[in-house]
C-alpha cells in the first residue's frame, strides 16, 4: 500500500460480526461505529437456522442496508452443504464483499471467484464488483498466504482467524498471543505484497476490554489495518487504535511541511528535529494523514508546535 492509493481506500479499521439469524442484532449492528459490518451465516448460525439466516441476510442487505458501512457476508465453508446456496443468494444481494472462511489454497479462491462471476452473469449484476475477504484459519492457510492474497483481483482483505489457527497448530490460545505472532506476520506481509488490507485476529474475551487494548498494542505496532470485533463494546476501542492520534497527526504534518519547505528551497536534504526525513518517513506521514482524513479527525486548526517528545519505545 502506498500513500497515494490509500487516499481513496475505504476505512476498514473495524468489522463487526453479527449473527445472521438474529434480526434485532443485525439491525442494531448498523448503528455502531464500525467501518464494516459482517452478516454471518457460518459459526453463529445453528445448522437448523441456515436457510432462514440466508434469507434474512439477503433481505437485510436488499432492503435495510446500513448507510455508510462496508457490508460483508461471511458465508459457510467452501466444502459445506450450504456454500453454493449461500453464494447464489448473497451474490444477488450485492454486498461489498463476501468473506470466505478457512481458506487454505489459492485454487479455492480462484474457484470461488469463477462461481461468483457466473452468478453475477446469471443475475445480470456488474461483473467483479463484489470483493472477497479471505480468512486464514489454519497452518496450511498461513503457509499459502502469499499465493492466496494474490489469487484473485476480487480480494480486498485477508484476516487471520486465531482460534482455528491455534487449534490446527495444537497450540494453546493465550492473551499475550505469542502463539500467533508468526502467523500474524506472515498474513500481514502477504497482504502488503498483494496491496490488500491486513485484518488482525479477533480478541475473543468480550469482557476483557483492558486485555483487548493490550492486544491492540501489538496489532498496531506490527502494522495491521484493522481488526475484526466479536462484540459491539470492542468497536470504539479498536477504532481508536487505528485512528491516528493528535500527536501522530501533528508529527506527520510537520514532516510534510518540512519536505515542502525543502522542495521550495531546492535543498536535497531535509532535516526535522535533528532527524533526516527519508522516504519511509514521508510515506508513513502521508499514510497517517490519509487515515486521519478518512476517519474525519484531521483538524485544520492543529497548531504545529516545536519538537515533540518521542514515546518511550519509539525509534
Amino acid at each position, binding site marked *: 500500500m502506498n500513500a497515494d492509493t490509500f487516499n481513496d481506500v475505504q476505512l476498514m479499521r473495524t468489522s463487526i460480526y453479527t449473527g445472521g439469524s438474529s434480526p*434485532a442484532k443485525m*439491525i*442494531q449492528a448498523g*448503528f*455502531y461505529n464500525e467501518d464494516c459490518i459482517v452478516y454471518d451465516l457460518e459459526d453463529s448460525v445453528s445448522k437448523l437456522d441456515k436457510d432462514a439466516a440466508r434469507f434474512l441476510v439477503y433481505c437485510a442487505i436488499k432492503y*435495510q442496508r446500513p448507510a455508510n458501512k462496508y457490508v460483508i457476508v461471511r458465508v459457510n465453508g467452501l466444502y459445506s452443504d450450504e456454500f453454493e446456496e449461500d453464494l447464489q443468494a448473497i451474490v444477488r444481494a450485492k454486498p461489498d464483499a463476501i468473506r470466505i472462511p478457512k481458506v487454505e489454497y489459492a485454487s479455492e479462491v480462484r474457484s470461488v471467484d469463477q462461481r461468483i462471476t457466473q452468478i453475477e452473469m446469471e443475475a445480470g449484476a456488474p461483473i467483479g464488483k463484489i470483493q472477497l475477504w479471505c480468512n486464514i484459519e489454519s497452518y496450511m492457510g498461513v503457509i499459502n498466504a502469499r499465493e492466496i492474497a494474490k489469487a484473485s483481483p476480487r480480494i480486498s482483505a485477508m484476516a487471520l482467524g486465531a482460534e482455528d489457527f491455534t487449534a490446527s497448530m495444537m497450540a494453546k490460545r493465550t492473551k499475550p498471543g505469542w502463539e500467533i505472532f508468526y502467523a500474524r506476520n506472515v498474513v500481514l506481509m502477504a497482504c502488503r505484497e498483494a496491496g490488500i488490507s491486513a485484518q488482525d485476529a479477533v480478541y475473543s474475551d468480550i469482557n476483557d476490554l483492558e486485555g483487548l487494548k493490550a492486544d491492540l498494542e501489538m496489532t498496531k505496532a506490527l502494522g495491521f489495518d484493522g481488526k475484526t470485533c466479536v*462484540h*459491539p*463494546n470492542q468497536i*470504539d476501542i479498536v477504532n481508536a487504535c487505528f485512528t491516528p492520534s493528535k500527536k501522530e497527526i501533528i508529527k506527520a504534518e510537520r514532516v510534510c511541511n518540512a519536505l515542502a519547505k525543502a522542495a521550495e528551497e531546492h535543498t536535497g536534504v531535509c532535516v526535522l528535529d535533528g532527524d533526516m526525513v527519508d522516504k519511509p518517513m514521508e510515506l508513513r506521514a502521508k499514510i497517517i494523514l490519509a487515515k486521519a482524513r478518512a476517519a474525519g479527525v484531521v483538524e485544520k486548526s492543529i497548531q504545529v508546535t516545536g519538537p515533540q517528545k518521542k514515546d518511550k519505545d519509539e525509534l
Partner: protein
Amino acid sequence: MKNAIGRELPDKIGDYIVMPYKGPYEAQMYQRSVASNRRMGHLLANEQKLLPDIKTAILESGLEDGMTISFHHCFREGDRLIGQVLNAIRELGIRHLKFAPSAVVNIKNPSIVQFIHDGTIDRIEASGIRGELGDAILKGALDKPVILRPHGARPRVIESGELNIDVAFIGASQADDYGNCTGLVGPNACGALGYSFIDAFNAKRVVVITDNLVPYPCVPVSISQQYVDFVVKVDTIGDTEKISAGAARLTNNPRDLYIAERCAEVIASSRRFKEGYSFQTGAGAISIAVTKYLHQKTQERNIYASFALGGITGTIIDMYDAGLLKAVECSQSFDSIAAKAIMERPGVLEIDNSNYSNPYTKGGFLNREDFGVLGALEVDTDFNVNVLTGSTGHMMGGLGGGPDVAAGAQLSIVTIPIIRGRTPSIVKKVRTVCEPGETIAAVVTEAGIALNPRHRNYAEISEDAERAGLNLVSIEHLQKIAERLTGIPKHIPTAERIACIVEYRDGSVLDLIYCLKP
C-alpha cells in the same frame, strides 16, 4: 376543546373539571396559604402510640367510608405492607376509599384489583398504574378515571387542598414506639423516605408501621414523632430481595451502553459542564451507564459536580466517593448501596420529594439542575414523551419525576433506542403525552441525536453540540429510520370510556387514556 399539545379534551369528566394544558410555565402561582389536613395534638407524658395491630390503628385513626388513604412506594415491587393494610380495612368493612399512593404500586399478593372489585377502593390517584391493576383499569374496573400525576404535582395537590389525605400509612424499616422512624436502617431498609414527608406533614392521621421496633429514641430519624399518631409492629413490611438487592447492575447491553455514552457526550459538550455542574440520571439501565460515563468525563475534565438529585443509585455514590460530587440530594434510594450511603456519608442527604420536584414551593433543587437524563417508551416528532402506555396499549410505567425533570433541568435529555422489539420508539404522535415536547432539549438514540428547536435553551445547546461535532440529526430523520425498520404499527382501538387523566405539574390536563376495546 384542545390543549396546547393539540389533544382533544372534554370540559368535564364526571365532576372533574378539565383545565387544558397551556404550557410548561404558564400556570399562575398559588398566592394562598398551604392547606393541611394535619390535626394539632396534645399527648401527655404517660400516653402511648404503640398499638397491637393494624386493625386497631385503622379504628383509632377514624378511617371511614369514602376517605382517602396513602402509602409510599419505597418498597417498590417488594411491598408487603399495602396488602396487609387493605386486607384489614376490608375486614373492618370500610369501603369506597380513595387510594392515593406516592407513585406506581404494583402489588401482586394480594392484588389491588381485588380491593377494587369488592368496593374497598373506588378511586385512585397515583403517578402510574401497571400490571394487573393497569389491565383492570383499562378494562373499566373503576367508574371514575384514575388521576395520574408526576412526583412534583402530588405535594402541590396536597398543599393546595385538592388531595386531602385522611390516613397516611407509612412503612418504616425501623421505628420506635413513639413514631420516630426511618427507612435507612433495619433488615428491610428501603432507603430515603422522601415521598412520605408530605404525607406525614399533612395527613389527618399518620400511622407508622414497622417490622423493626427499636428502643426509644430511634436513630437515625427521617420522620419525627411530632407528626405521628400511631405505631404498629408487624412481622414484615417488605421483601428485601425486591426492595434493593445490592447495587443496581451496570448493563452489558451494547446498544444501551452506546446510547449512554452518546448522552454523556451531549452533557460534556455543554458549556454548563464545568466546575459545580449538577445532574440527575435516574435508575434505568441507560441512566446508570450515563452516570458511569459522566464519572469518567468529570474526572478527565478535572472538575466536580455540585449535586446529584432524585432517585439515587450506587453509581452516583461512586462519584461521591471519588470526590467528584459535593452533595447527593436523595429523595429515593434505588439500591442498597445508595440506601446505606445516607447513613455513612455526610454529603449524601435524604430530602423531601417536594424539595426535589414540586414547582410550587419557594424554590427547589430542580430549579438549580443543569442536566436531567430521562427514559421513555416513545418520543414523537414534536418531542412529546410517553412514559405510560406501551405498544400494546397497556400501562407500562409511571410518570415519576419525568415531567418535573424535563421542565426543571436546563438541558433535559431523553435516552431511547429508536426501536424496541418490533415497534418504533420514535413516532409521529405518541400514544400518551406525559412530558410536553417543549420541555425536552435533546433526544439521544443509537441512530443520532436530535435537538429540539422549540426548547428554551436550543441556541446554546445546538451551538455547543455542533462545536463538539456530535452526530446531530432531525427528529423526523429518526422517526423515518424507525418506521423504515418496523413499518407503522396498527392503531390500538379504544373504547369511549376514559380510564386515566394525565395531569401536568400544574394540574392541567396533558392527555387522556381510554379504556381498551375488549
